[in-house]
Every structure is written in C-alpha cells, then in structure tokens.
C-alpha cells in the first residue's frame, strides 16, 4: 500500500485477559445501555391478554441485572490483570502519575485531535496516553454505575451482593435522585462509544498498525526503532 518500505515488527500488546475484558465489557455495556434505556422509557408493547400471561418488561429488567453482574465480573478480571499483566495493561499506564505521561497526553491531543504538525508522533505502543486518560474516566463512570445500580437493585433483591452497596444512599437524598444520576451517566457511554469507534478508525486509517485487528488477535504492527 505504501510506497516506502517500512521495516516492521509484530508486538504482542493485548494479552488474552485484556481482550476478554474488552469484549465482555463492550457486550455488557451495550446490553445494559439498551435494556436500561427501555427501563427508563418503556415502549408501548401492548397486547390484549391479562398481565399474568406476559412478562417482557420483567425479562428486560432481568437481562439488565444479569448484564450488570457480567459487567462487574469483567472489571474484576481487568483490575486483577492491571497488576498481573504486561506493561500495556498495568495500572500505572492508566493511572498516570508520571510527568512524561501527561506530556504525551498533550502531544497526542495536539497531533490527533487538533491535527497540528511539529509534535513527536511516536506514541506509546499500547494505549496512547490520551486514550489512557479516557479509559480512566470510563472506569470511574463505570464504578459509579456499579455503585448506583446495585444500590438501586438492593431494594428489590434478597441477595447479599447488592446489599454491600447500600451505604451509597448516604450521599444521595433519595433513590429517585440516585436513579436520575444512574440514568444520565448511561449517556456517557453512548458518547464514549462514538469517540472510541471514530478515533480507532482514524488511527487505523492513518497509522496502519493493525489497530482494529489487535483487539481480536492481540498483535500490533509497529515500526522497528
């Protein structure tokens, strides 16, 4: 495709647990978003039979709660792997404590978002630093959704797990207001999805590192230094 010859190397970036997390997370988020939206705005799917003959709204809620558990399980895998995994998966890549990392956030912002020339474009092999920052926000919003969601669920569940979260109510006036925050936070994921898909496509087109396929097979194609 390119006219220049590039000397390339294959780098194993995304280990299996990271990829597993990614797809479990993506799947459960989409299911949670759709079923959650339906809980908030149920469509008028009417029939003339008595209520005891159908249960679709109950099933919709059941799927929402089930997906929530999968979502939590996926995050537990990912959190474990942020201590056990390779350098790209480490917590230190996401929770940016080093000055260089913030420098990279700035460079990535200038080159990729504002598309200004003259900055070093050799970003990290794994996530670039700006992406890491966005994943940190994703993680925090996800944490809030887990806390608020299971708190709301606790009132209707006999299980011990949702009961672990009831302390969250101390910070909210009522369940109705907590429900509001739970609802509006869902839209963050919709916005995230748009940015995420677009920017991956943008990088894949421009850099040709096999970014799309990397989340399936784990490998990126990088230039030799």
């Amino acid at each position, binding site marked *: 495709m390119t006219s*220049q010859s590039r000397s390339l190397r294959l780098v194993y970036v995304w280990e299996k647990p990271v990829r597993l997390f990614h797809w479990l997370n993506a799947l459960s988020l989409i299911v949670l978003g759709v079923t959650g939206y339906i809980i908030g705005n149920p469509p*008028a799917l009417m029939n003339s039979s008595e209520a*005891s003959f159908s249960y679709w*709204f109950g099933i919709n809620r059941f799927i929402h709660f089930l997906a929530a558990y999968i979502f939590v399980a996926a995050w537990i895998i990912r959190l474990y792997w942020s201590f056990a995994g390779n350098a790209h998966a480490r917590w230190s890549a996401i929770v940016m404590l080093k000055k260089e990392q913030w420098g990279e956030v700035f460079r990535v912002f200038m080159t990729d978002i504002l598309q200004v020339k003259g900055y070093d*474009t050799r970003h990290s092999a794994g996530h670039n630093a700006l992406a890491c920052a966005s994943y940190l926000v994703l993680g925090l919003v996800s944490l809030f959704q887990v806390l608020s969601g299971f708190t*709301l669920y606790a009132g209707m569940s006999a299980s011990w797990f949702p009961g672990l979260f009831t302390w969250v109510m101390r910070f909210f006036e009522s369940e109705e207001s907590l429900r509001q925050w739970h609802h509006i936070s869902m*839209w963050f994921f919709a916005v995230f999805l748009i940015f995420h898909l677009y920017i991956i496509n943008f990088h894949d087109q*421009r850099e*040709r590192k096999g970014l799309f396929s990397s989340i399936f097979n784990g490998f990126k194609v990088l230039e030799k230094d």
Partner: protein
Amino acid sequence: MNAKKPLPGKLQKRLTLWEQMRSHGHSRRDFLKLCGWLAAAAGIEAGALSKVVHALETKPRPPVVWFHFQECTCCSESFIRSSHPLVADIVLDKISLDYTETLQAAAGHQAEKSLHDTMTKYKGQYLMLVEGSVPTADGGVHCCIGGRTALDIVTEAARDAQAIVAWGSCASNGCVQAARPNPTSATPIHKIISGKPIINVPGCPPIGEVMAGTIVHLLTFGRIPQLDSQGRPKAFYSRRVHDTCYRRPNFDAGLFAESFDDENARKGYCLYKLGCRGPTTYNACAVTRWNEGVSFPIQSGHGCIGCSEAGFWDNGPFYEELPSFPGFGIESTADSIGLTAVAAAAAGVAAHAAYAGLRRKADGEKDQDKGGE
C-alpha cells in the same frame, strides 16, 4: 404555678394502662382485646402478645408532648383518622398527652406551663413528638411559638426527652418548605438534634395506622422499634410501594397506561409511565391503605408521588416518568441532556473527520502515506 410548688395529682402519679382502664370501669377482657389490637398495629407477632400485656400492666404511661412547627397539620389529621387501634383511645386515654397545640384544651400561658411542667417533672421520661420542620435561617424567626423560635423550643425539649418521633416528611426530611431553594432553611429534626433516639415517620401525611403503630411500639416496649438506614420503622417502611402494589403484574408484563384518559388507564394498567414513584418509595400504602383500608393513591388511579421520600418535591414533575434534571431547567430530562451530548459528540467527530480530510488534501498524497509516523 412555678416548678417549686407541688404538681397536680395527675402529673404526680402516673398510672399504667391497665390501672387506668380499670379505674375507668373497663373489664379485663376489654384490656386484653386492646392489647391484641395494639400488638397487631405495631406489627408484633402473635406469640409476643403476653409481653405486650405484661408491659401495659406494669409500665406507667409515658407523658407525651407533641409540637407543631413548619407544617400543615395533615399529620395530626391523618393520626386522628387512624382506625385500628382507635385513635381516640390512644390520644385521649392511653398516652398522657400533656401538650399539643392542636388538640389541647389549654391555651396561652396555661399551655406553655403544662409543657414546662412535663419537661421538668418527667426529665428523661417523656416522649417528644414533632410535626413540622424547623427553620434555621435568620436566627429561626420564620417559626415562633409563644415568642420563642422553633429552633429554641426543639433544642430545649429534646434535651430531656426519652425519645423523639419526627412525624411526617416535614420533620423527617423537610418536605415542601425544604424544596429548592428552601428560603427559610427548613431543617428536619434529625439534622438538628443528636444524641437522642429519633424515629422518622415520613409521609405527607404518614398513614394514621403507621403513626399509631409507632406510638404503640414505644408505649409497649419503652424503646424504639427497629429502624432502617434512614431512621424509619422497618415494620412499615421496609418495602417499596411498587413491590406491594396490586398493579405490579402489569409492570412486569409491560402493560402501561399512556395517559390518564386512555383505555389502559381504565383497565387498571401500571401508572409507571405517568410518573408513579412507587419503584423508589418505601411505605406501607399498598398494604395498610388509607381511611380504614379503603384505598390508596394507585388504587384510585393516581400514581404515587413518593411523598415519604426525601426531596420528593424536587424530583418532579409528578406526572413524568423521568423527572427534570437538577440544574438544567424545568424541561430537561436525563434523556434530553444525554441526547444533546450524543449529538454534540457526533458533530465533533464529523468536524474532526472533515478537518482531517482537508488537511490530507492540503498536504498531498505523499504526506498522507506517511501517516502519523
């Protein structure tokens, strides 16, 4: 009369309920029947009836003072309509109600003296029932009784109270006068008083039987009932209106009334889409119901407005499933804000793509092949 002089006999010798009933000519049978009633109202299991009987035979009736601050007296109205046990019995005979602005015969200085006598004579023994919130703005001047602020009165009375019951949403969470912007800084009792057992009995008003049941529990056992995290008696506030609602099967089946006038509303479908707050409201309405068990809002075709939940006035409009979002104006729901954010994100992405395309054209094909490298 000042506190140094001997107090009247009524205040000096406190009878037990049994003694008091006997002196009024009631039989043992009457007494036992009442005990059964009271136990049922307080949610006490049948096996523990003997405890109730024993307590009411041996424990003197606690003196009670009942305050009214920023409120509409709907709690009192509800209370005097509780039917099981007959409230007339509770208020006028079974508890020794020494002070209440609404129902007492005394007025003015006499009333204030009665309050003072009770508080000094029965230090640490009287029950303090509070209806209404307490304004704290501007030194508390927005609610004054007998020339003193509610804040002053409540602080003084609470000091020597055995326990405090906060009647209704006003006293438990501030209700309408604490709704944004809360001009008088209306404050619920539990945020003013600390170090005393406080029972919150929210609702606008609370159900009469729930109020009576709470009092009965205090009378019977002399200690506060089991409370939830928000200080409400678990016997009445541990279940959601939604989970006890007779329309619940319609919710699970996805059968919703779309408007109050449609065929679905007539069929008695779930009122969720018309703003029913049953799913986030903890109360006994669907179980105990109102006015001798006649009905409750949902049974009468109107959604629950969540009147026993803190901040329910700020989670309106009452007839919208999604309340308007705080800080974004009246008509903004979580979804309208979310959709705007999604549209803005899409526009941002489109602008970025267009700009990238322009840059590529300007830089020429060669540069583009190099890409980001």
